[in-house]
C-alpha cells in the first residue's frame, strides 16, 4: 500500500510501546514465540529505538518511522495502542480514524477512505480550474 500511494500521500509509522512483551509475569503470545519475537518492554528510548529498528528490518518497512517517548505520550494522546490508523488531511485535521487494533485495524477500510478523499480533492481542483477559466 505504501509503494502504491507514496507518490501522492505521505506515510509515517509511529512506533509504540510493546503490546505483548515478555517479562517475569507475562509470556510471549504463541505466534510471537513461534516467530522468535521475544521482546521485553523497553524502559528507555534507546531500547525502544533498537526494537523499532528491529521491527522495521523484520517487516521490511520502507516508510519513515518515528518512535514514541518512553512515557508513551503519543500513544496515549492518540489512543493508538496497540495499533491504529489515521489519515491526516492537508489542513492538519484528522480525516479518518480507524478502529483500535488488532481487530479494528483495517488497512483496506483506510485505503478506501483515502481513495475517496483523493477523488474528492481532484474534483474540487477540477471545479476550481473550470471556475477560473470562465
Amino acid at each position, binding site marked *: 500500500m505504501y509503494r502504491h500511494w507514496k507518490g501522492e500521500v505521505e506515510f509515517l509509522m509511529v512506533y509504540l510501546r510493546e503490546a505483548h*512483551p515478555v517479562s517475569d509475569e507475562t509470556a510471549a503470545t504463541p505466534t510471537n514465540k513461534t516467530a522468535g519475537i521475544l521482546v521485553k518492554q523497553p524502559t528507555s528510548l534507546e531500547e525502544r529505538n533498537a526494537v523499532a529498528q528491529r521491527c522495521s528490518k523484520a517487516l521490511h518497512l520502507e516508510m519513515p518511522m518515528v518512535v514514541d*517517548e518512553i512515557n508513551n505520550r503519543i500513544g496515549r494522546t492518540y489512543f493508538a495502542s496497540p495499533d491504529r*490508523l489515521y489519515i491526516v488531511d492537508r489542513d492538519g485535521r*484528522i480525516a479518518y*480514524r480507524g478502529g483500535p487494533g488488532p481487530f479494528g485495524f483495517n488497512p483496506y477500510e483506510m485505503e478506501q477512505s483515502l481513495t475517496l478523499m483523493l477523488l474528492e480533492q481532484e474534483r474540487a481542483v477540477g471545479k476550481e480550474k473550470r471556475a477560473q477559466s470562465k
Partner: protein
Amino acid sequence: MRSMIVLGLALGIGLSHAAAQPKGRKKDEDFVVARPCAGDPLPEVTVFSPDGKEFKTSSLRGHYTVLTFGCLT
C-alpha cells in the same frame, strides 16, 4: 423496603464490577469515543526518529498523511 434491597444489590454488583476492572485498563468504549476523532485538529506532539531527528506533528500539512501506529509484538 424490597425495592431498597434490590437497589442496594444492583449498586453493589455495579461497584464490584467496576472494582474488578483492571486499574488503568481502557474499556472498549473508550477507544470508540475518545478524541482525537475525525474532524479534530491533529494533536501537537514532538517525537524523534530512531536516528534522533526531531519530528513535529504540526509539520503534517499540505498533503494527506497516513499515520500507522503499532509495534513489533
